[in-house]
């Protein structure tokens, strides 16, 4: 009987981890592009803000969970038995990827937190004249704070996408060294 947690489930978990990561990359990059459109004061579909926000967060959690379940197996079978001895740089890169994933999670949560009310505002204004920014409020202060919120949404979504893409490249590099 294997002594490492979920060792025999490793291949299946790796497939789940990879599939979730593919969905995550697609959703997070789409979400970041929506944010760029908003920053450029171009109209976006409010439904897309919520859809990509939820898809990104759920795919992030799914990828993180599958990765966490795989981690004990990786630590013994891949890292202790091979990477630490033959390719320590890959072990270090993998650890960096894991740490980045943890501090990236609040960015995905934050993007969704902002996307929910933002989508309501974008909807009400897009119906009026197609401009998501110019008609949201008559007050200059509200407009100014809306600009900051949109920038914050941009930072959170672009940050999430960058974390995801970095982690995919790092994961592929580590897998290329030793396999999964």
């Amino acid at each position, binding site marked *: *009987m294997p*002594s490492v947690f979920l060792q025999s489930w490793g291949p299946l978990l790796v497939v789940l981890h990879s599939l979730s990561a593919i969905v995550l990359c697609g959703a997070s990059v789409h979400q970041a592009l929506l944010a760029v459109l908003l920053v450029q004061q171009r109209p976006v579909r409010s439904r897309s803000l919520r859809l990509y926000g939820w898809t990104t967060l759920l795919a992030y959690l799914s990828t993180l969970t599958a990765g966490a379940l795989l981690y004990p197996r990786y630590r013994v079978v891949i890292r202790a038995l091979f990477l630490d001895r033959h390719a320590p740089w890959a072990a270090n890169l993998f650890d960096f990827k894991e740490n980045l994933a943890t501090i990236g999670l609040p960015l995905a949560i*934050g993007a969704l937190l902002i996307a929910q*009310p933002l989508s309501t505002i974008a909807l009400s204004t897009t119906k009026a004249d197609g401009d998501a920014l110019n008609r949201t409020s008559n007050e200059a202060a509200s407009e100014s704070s809306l600009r900051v919120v949109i920038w914050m949404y941009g930072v959170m979504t672009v940050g999430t996408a960058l974390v995801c893409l970095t982690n995919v490249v790092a994961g592929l590099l580590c897998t290329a060294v030793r396999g999964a």
Partner: protein
Amino acid sequence: MMVDLRRAALYASILSTSTSLVFFLTGVVSLPVPLYLPLDRRWSIGTAAGEPSLSMDYFGRSLIALGVAGIVTGAVALTARSWHRPGRATISGPTTKTLRLGLAYAVTAFVLCASLFAYKLYGREAVLTELPSDPLH
């Protein structure tokens, strides 16, 4: 609606900033955290350096960082909600300046934390662990 939006943005920045800061702290201070020992298949609390066997502190550090950040953000949200009760003067939510500061703190904390771990892990020497003759069976 704008008040909800500004509050959501503030909470998002607080969540991100506090996660990065607590995670940064676990990287620079040797705090006792929940450790998973994969060969023994058990958990313990301590520092990774103090464990003789193969240990994993990533789960513990992540749980602490995300847990503390969740508690801090929840506390701020509850405080803001209690101020918004009927009978009290309505507040207009965070100001633009507060939001700008929140964004700046979130970005700075994230970059600082990512840089710390990049620095710590770049060129880290592997510590070869004594393993059982056949650790998988």
